[in-house]
């Protein structure tokens, strides 16, 4: 069974009496340790799909199983607790807390887990190191560049060592150099740390680093799914990944 398994997922919004379905009857399988890029025009439902997989949003119909968990059936609080262990979310606009330092921002998700202060500090430091931003640990977001902010946000996503990382246009707001640095970092998370990545992007170049690219348009996948991948973004699977426990993992 795939790590992420969507069957017949449909999302319907009712706007002013009229139904509007950004996602229509989608099937999707993502294997453990896969790196998948998700492309599609604006409004095609990419963010909605990420949110449904991470239990932030619920599908109108269909089943979503992630690591064997029936995600839509979880209550709001149960979903949050599950997310704190299973999913690392990277946002386009970083969403760092402006009044906290980089270190404190990365620490936020760890405050949900029972551990000693020393153990927590160690994991935060490791995550900052893995994201290549430990030299900025004591700076607040306003003192950081966009690329640095996104690194902090990535450190925050991996600090609790989730198996799955979802990233919603992680390079959307970055210049080319910062973007390629962030993409390099995501590749490392995949190759060295064995994470499963699902990354939304508008940039075909960015999608190239993924093993597989899927395209959403008008609520459906352009290429049949599961099975063959789209031509452009397809690359041979990366060499066998290192176990999850490396690097930022405790």
């Amino acid at each position, binding site marked *: 069974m795939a790590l992420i398994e969507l069957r017949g997922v449909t999302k319907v919004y009712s706007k002013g009496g009229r139904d509007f379905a950004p996602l229509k009857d989608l099937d999707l399988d993502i294997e453990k340790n896969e790196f998948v890029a998700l492309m599609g025009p604006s409004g095609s439902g990419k963010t909605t799909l990420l949110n449904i997989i991470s239990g*932030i949003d619920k599908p109108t119909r269909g089943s979503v199983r992630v690591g064997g968990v029936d995600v839509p059936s979880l209550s709001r609080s149960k979903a*949050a607790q599950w997310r*704190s262990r299973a999913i690392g979310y990277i946002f386009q606009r970083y969403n760092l807390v402006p009044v906290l330092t980089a270190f404190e921002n990365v620490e*936020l*998700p760890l405050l949900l887990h029972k551990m000693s202060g020393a153990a927590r500090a160690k994991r935060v430091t490791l995550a900052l190191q893995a994201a290549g931003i430990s030299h900025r640990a004591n700076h607040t977001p306003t003192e950081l560049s966009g690329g640095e902010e996104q690194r902090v946000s990535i450190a925050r996503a991996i600090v609790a060592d989730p198996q799955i990382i979802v990233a919603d246009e992680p390079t959307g707001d970055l210049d080319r150099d910062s973007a390629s640095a962030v993409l390099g970092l995501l590749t490392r998370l995949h190759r060295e740390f064995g994470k499963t990545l699902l990354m939304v992007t508008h940039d075909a170049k960015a999608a190239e680093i993924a093993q597989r690219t899927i395209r959403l348009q008008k609520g459906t996948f352009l290429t049949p799914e599961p099975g063959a991948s789209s031509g452009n973004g397809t690359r041979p699977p990366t060499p066998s990944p290192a176990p999850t426990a490396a690097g930022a993992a405790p």
Partner: protein
Amino acid sequence: MITYILRSLLRNKTRSILTIGAVALTTFIFCFVRAIDSGMDRLLSSSGAEKKLIVYHKNRFCYATSKLLERYVPRIAEIPGVERVLPLKVYVSNCRASLDIVTFEGGPTDELLASRPIKVVAGDLEQWKRDEDAALVGVALAKRRSLSPGVKFRVGNVLVNVVAIFESGSSVDDNIAFTHLGYLQRIPGLNSVGYVTQIEVYLKDPARSEAIARQIDDMFATDESPTDTKPERAFLARKTRDLAEVVTFARVLGYVCVLVMLAILANTVVMAVQDRVRELAMLQAVGYDVQRVAAIVLAESGLAAFAGGLVGAGIAALVLWWTRLGIATEGIQVEFALSFGSIGMGVVSSTVAGAIAGIAPAWHASHLEIADALRSL
């Protein structure tokens, strides 16, 4: 987590300061009202039970109009069961309710000292007994009017020479200046020679207080100045009746203030939540559950209110303890009494109010549509 909550409070400094200021002001008012309240309570409970009767002119309520013939004094002293009698001439600077009133009580010096448990803290008691125009001034009054031994002190037609300062432990007495009876009676314009304002009657047996009071009133019922005799507590309650109504009114106002603050505070917390829906959504996206998000909002608003409560209660304590402020009516000084209990109650209730004000915003924050909030700018 605490770091996050504290920093969140500091993020919008102006708003936090205004919020804390509003809470501080309300807590200040709350403490003030409580202080007046317990001042009244203390006044009415401290008075020496039923062992002391006060004889006053019937149907007269002001010191200026109560005139009893001095010759009543020996007749009352003869009544069986009466231990001691203290005639007093009382002169007050102001008969109405006022924040700054000066009360002179003139009496025979030895009886006065026997009836009032006072401790001289400065000056010379012997000089007070000796000099006709000498005044023995209570600490509270001395502090309020900056009086010290050697100073001349004039109120209206009364000019005295302050020779000693005393402390009595009674808020009423601490606001009084004691003089010689004859000196006050002879003040020009008072026409009081041969008259006293009131007579204090000390009883051997409190159980007989009512009978003796009736006996005194019967004795002078048809005399030049008919009397009205009451136990001290009833006398004080009668004299402070108007003030008690004002205090009730102030209490209602105080509680309305607390309600208003609650609304202001709730509004502020709502704004603080609305300003950062995306951040609150982020917290939930990284795994913060309903209880935690709600707790954060409640803690922020409770903490702001706690800080405000501390500031307000602190200022109230400083102001009241420093100035020994009190209100007087018909010459009875009600000193505002701010107890540690009231201070604690002020701080606790403002904190609770803060938490209550945070309930709706906390619910809102913890139940927002995460997906929509993350999309918002």
